[in-house]
């Protein structure tokens, strides 16, 4: 039984459905964890509309993770198409972590404050500059050709890459979304710069994807049909990473900007009163 998708160079693709049991177990664990966290936060008052939005965000995160990791996109991205692999990164490493954090009510984070050790660890790991570098390093290392070619042909290696993406994404979004630890110094302008810099930064593997003369990943170059044009697929993958990543960051900028405007207006109304 295959529990996670992995690269199988030289193996023919079949459209026969096969479940990836690890994906389903992972999603079940997420649902269980979410229910526990939101249950413990039921005492805190939050309007029904907001609660519905959070549930919707959680549902969207689950869908994004399931659609990109399970059959057929999971195996196609692991074994045949670099472009699908990059879409998976945007889903698992960028979009899903943001949705998961947004799905949690502020009260769900409060429990973290009970442990001084946890708060201290969060303070250092999710300090914006540190979080930015952790995310960039995770993103760069997990897309480096030698690392991809070495890890993707095993289920454990492929799972490690997906897990690193999810953890890196959670760390990246944490200072923007989580109220714990409080970061009064991380103001909206700095938040916008944090997101914009990430959108504009071209990392070495992505530049290689677009500008390399030869395919840089062996697993995608040696993938049988339906893969056919390894170099074209790779260039498309680079474009997806740059443009897709930039759009997600841009959406983040819009949310931060809107939140900033709302709080400014509320502040103005308060001082008028």
């Amino acid at each position, binding site marked *: 039984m295959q529990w996670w998708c992995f690269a199988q*160079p*030289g*193996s*023919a*693709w079949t459209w026969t459905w096969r479940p990836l049991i690890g994906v389903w177990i992972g999603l079940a664990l997420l649902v269980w964890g979410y229910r526990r966290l939101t249950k413990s936060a039921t005492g805190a008052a939050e309007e029904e509309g907001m609660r519905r939005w959070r549930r919707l965000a959680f549902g969207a995160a689950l869908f994004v993770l399931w659609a990109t990791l399970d059959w057929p996109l999971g195996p196609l991205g692991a074994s045949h198409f670099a472009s699908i692999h990059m879409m998976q990164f945007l889903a698992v490493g960028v979009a899903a972590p943001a949705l998961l954090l947004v799905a949690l009510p502020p009260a769900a984070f409060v429990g973290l404050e009970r442990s001084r050790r946890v708060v201290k660890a969060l303070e250092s790991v999710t300090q914006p500059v540190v979080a930015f570098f952790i995310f960039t390093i995770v993103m760069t290392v997990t897309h480096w050709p030698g690392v991809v070619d070495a890890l993707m042909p095993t289920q454990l290696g492929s799972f490690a890459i997906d897990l690193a993406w999810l953890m890196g994404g959670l760390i990246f979004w944490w200072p923007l979304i989580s109220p714990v630890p409080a970061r009064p110094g991380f103001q909206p302008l700095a938040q916008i710069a944090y997101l914009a810099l990430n959108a504009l930064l071209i990392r070495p593997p992505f530049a290689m994807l677009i500008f390399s*003369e*030869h*395919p840089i990943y*062996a697993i995608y*170059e*040696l*993938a*049988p*049909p339906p893969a*056919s*044009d*390894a*170099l074209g697929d790779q260039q498309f993958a680079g474009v997806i990473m740059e443009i897709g990543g930039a759009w997600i960051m841009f959406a983040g900028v819009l949310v931060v900007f809107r939140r900033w405007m709302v709080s400014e207006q509320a502040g103005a109304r308060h001082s008028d009163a």
Partner: protein
Amino acid sequence: MAALGALAASAGCGVPADGGRLGELRGSVMDPPIPKPDLVLTDTRGQAYDLRRETDGYLTLVFFGYTYCPDVCPVHMATLGAAIGDLQPEVRDRTKVVFVSTDPERDTPERLRAWLDGFDPSIVGLRGPVDEINAALATMKLPGVAVVPSEHGSDPLIGHPSAVVAFGPDGLARVRYPFGVRRADWAHDLPMLTARP
């Protein structure tokens, strides 16, 4: 499928392309060198093609496969076709790629030509009796063609060697390229191979 796997393994499928270097080359060494087989087949225009005569003095890359192959053949031909497209004209003019069909019944001349054109129109496609092809494979010390019934009752799979054999301009093969060889490897080796005897 198991038989196909065993055949592929015996032919070097999955062996890293850098196993056993000949000087700086990235292919696997063939020691002693193998002479080009005496093989006369039919090309996709329906004309007789004498492998030795037509490719004399050229670097000749020979691969035995079939167009319905779901895995090794399209990958090999895609990497090789892309590499040929990248070659300098002087290297390209001294190189011939020959694809010998191991499934002549299903690989009609039209189908074979269309399939090869998808990789590079200069690739020569040959068809002929399987007995003659097996005799040629035997002289090259490669496993013969084997029909493997499909697991799902659909079209059968054809077992065939998974390596591209490179014959130098002198007609001797000193190096072969198992499955796993990449476009960058071809780009590295082909200019050197055309410069050798």
